[in-house]
């Protein structure tokens, strides 16, 4: 383990908001704040995919931002990991049935860590990023992991109905349970 590069000591994060309602985004901002202080783990929020190791995605994918997400992912140098932040990024969440929503981030880029929550709590987010960072070393060694997806691929996504995975829990309907009975 001597010559092991501790990638997890300095994971640089790039954040891309897909269809998020801002809930997760402002919680990610809160992570930078003095109370949580992401930087104490060496995590830096860089705005540029070319400098980043970890791609944090919030929100579900739609037709227009799918290609952006793909580009951002492609531009990151290897090794890289993706963290899907919040339930929308995992499955599409409450918006899963919207006509312009394709579903979770996994439709476009391979995801390494899912962080639950609507929105995820800052603690969960930090944990997610650190777990992802821990995978960087493994990713660097493992030659099977694709280094770079060809940039010439045309991003055309499948029709969402067909590609929608059967989810263990239907988040959207779970969210929409009438609650006034409780009150």
């Amino acid at each position, binding site marked *: 383990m001597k010559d092991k590069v501790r990638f997890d000591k300095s994971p640089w994060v790039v954040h*891309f908001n897909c269809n998020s309602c801002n809930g997760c985004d402002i919680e990610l901002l809160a992570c930078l704040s003095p109370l949580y202080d992401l930087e104490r783990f060496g995590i830096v929020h860089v705005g*540029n*995919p*070319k400098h980043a190791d970890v791609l944090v995605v919030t929100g579900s994918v739609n037709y*227009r931002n799918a*290609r*952006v*997400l793909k*580009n*951002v992912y*492609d*531009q990151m*140098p290897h090794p890289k990991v993706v963290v899907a932040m919040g339930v929308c990024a995992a499955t599409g969440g409450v918006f899963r049935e919207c006509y312009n929503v394709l579903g979770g981030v996994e439709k476009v880029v391979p995801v390494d860590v899912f962080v639950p929550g609507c929105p995820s709590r800052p603690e969960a987010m930090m944990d997610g990023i650190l777990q992802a960072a821990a995978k960087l070393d493994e990713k660097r060694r493992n030659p099977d992991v694709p*280094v*770079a997806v060809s*940039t*010439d*691929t*045309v*991003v055309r996504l499948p029709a969402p109905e067909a590609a929608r995975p059967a989810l263990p829990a239907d988040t959207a309907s779970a969210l929409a349970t009438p609650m006034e009975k409780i009150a």
Partner: protein
Amino acid sequence: MPSAAPTQLWLVVALICGPIIFGLLAWLAQSERTRNILVITATCLTALAGVALAVQGPFMLQAGPGTGHLGDLLEAVMVAVVLGIGYKQKIWPVFAMGIVQAGLVVFEHLGKGAESANPTFILDSLSTILVLIISIVGSVIVVYGIGYMHVHEHHAPPTTASTGRFFFFLTGFLGLMNGLVLTDSLKWLAIFWEGTTLCSFFLIGHDRTPEARRNAARALIINVFGGMSLGFGVALAQHEGGNGSISNMVQSAALLPLVLVVLATFTKSAQMPFQSWLLGAMVAPTPVSALLHSSTMVKAGSYLLLRLAPGFVGTNLATVIALSGAFTFAVTSAIAISQSNAKKVLAYSTIANLGLIVACAGIGTPMAYSAALVILVYHAISKALLFLCVGTIEQQIGSRDIDDMSGIMLKMPYTTTIAAVGMVSMMLPPFGMLVGKWMAIASSGHAPIVLLLLVIGSALTIFFWAKWLGRIITTAYHDHYTVENLPFSMKGALSLLVLMVIAGGAMTGVIYRNYLSPLAKVTMSGSPLANDSSVLLKSVDEFMGWPLITIIVVVAGVVLMALLGLRNSHTRLPFLCGENTPSGTRTFVFRSLMDQPVTAHVSSFYFAPWFGEIGITKWANPVAVLILLTLFVRIGLI
């Protein structure tokens, strides 16, 4: 100084008359082929004669009897031609100045009677350097002109016959310049001076467009004005009892003739407020611009100033000259930032560097003098190269706008690489231009205002070079180089010049130590600051040793390392906020409104509101005029 041997006499004749005669033959030649052969012969002859002369060492040559009358005749012819042009083309200021000059000539002859002194030719270190520059760099430009004009003829209205005329003036220019730097006789100097003025008039107006005619006329007005000033200076010098030689003028204490001649050098080297003719000269075909800017015309002015420098060293006059040069340097460097026309950037840079030379001549320490020499030499080579590159690029992409030059690295890698080397040589170590600038700044420590102007100017220079260099080296994401197809003469000329630039860069130390530094020390030994300067020169000498070599080795090493590092790198699309279009060939196209592709483009920064040509010239010209007026104040005339 030894008298000339017969071979040297013939070499001088070959240097001066050879190009003119062959040029005349080329004009008369019927076919392009014959003409090309004649032009090449002329250039080879000049270059060889120049080198041969330089190898032979210094001498002094007293021309035979009768040549004095030849001089009178030529003087009369020059005045007549000026008058003729002024009348025929209705350039009345020129006509008026022609009449004044004619009056001067008549007056001079009446006053002195019939005897005319025979001219003297002197070859010392300074003229050797100039002869080498003119005959080698100038010749290379002329050779380049062959290929260039072949293409140019198809675009422009001029016919083959007029191209012949063009080459006559081009090669004739070389001959006249050689004469100018070799002669020690003020009268002959004035003749050659006027000759170059006329040549430049015809060359600038070669394309015969209204703009070309206008600019040629402007060049003529300003330079005839300079010529007139020179004429008066010469007449005054002789009136005050000089023997009509430059060396005598330098030794005499009379300042007024000196001031008049200095004024003439300012017009020729396009110092502010006389810079407009050189900018107008940009309309001419590129070889002309290259010739005017690098090795001839403008160098005539700085040459004469350097020649005269010991004459005014330490006087008030020198202070004003230094100030004027530094002012030109700072202001024109600033204006160059706002220019998008490549040739204009080069023109302003030329004026700025000439300003630096003038400032150095004014400062007058051995250090400053050697700085002036270094700049004189290296500027000639680098600027010639850059002009030729711009000409080539312009012919290939049909534009001389800097912003249109992005991506030419792929279209014409050969020319672009050479141009990049040229630009690097203008601003970075180990090349001579930077060394010159360095010494200039170092030697101006005693004159705070000059120093400030030089410091500001040198910072501004970096700006426009860097942004232009960055523009041309820009390459796309996938490198698909296509090598451009250039005529042999152009390719040859470019290669030769770039070799000279690189060799010159590598040998900065050698050239400086063996040729420029001793010359400066000898010439400027009379400077009151000579002792201070010697300390600095020692520091420069040391730098020319191992540190310079270290720089060269490091640069070369890094280039090699980078080449090795290329293999294991992957390319990725550039950052366009994630909206890259997924096509590999359209790399800098992003999707925007309605998913439509739009090409991302960042033009260079010009800061037109700050550094705009019109805005700055409006106040800088009057200031420059004021500075020039103080020349006369300083010698107590006003």
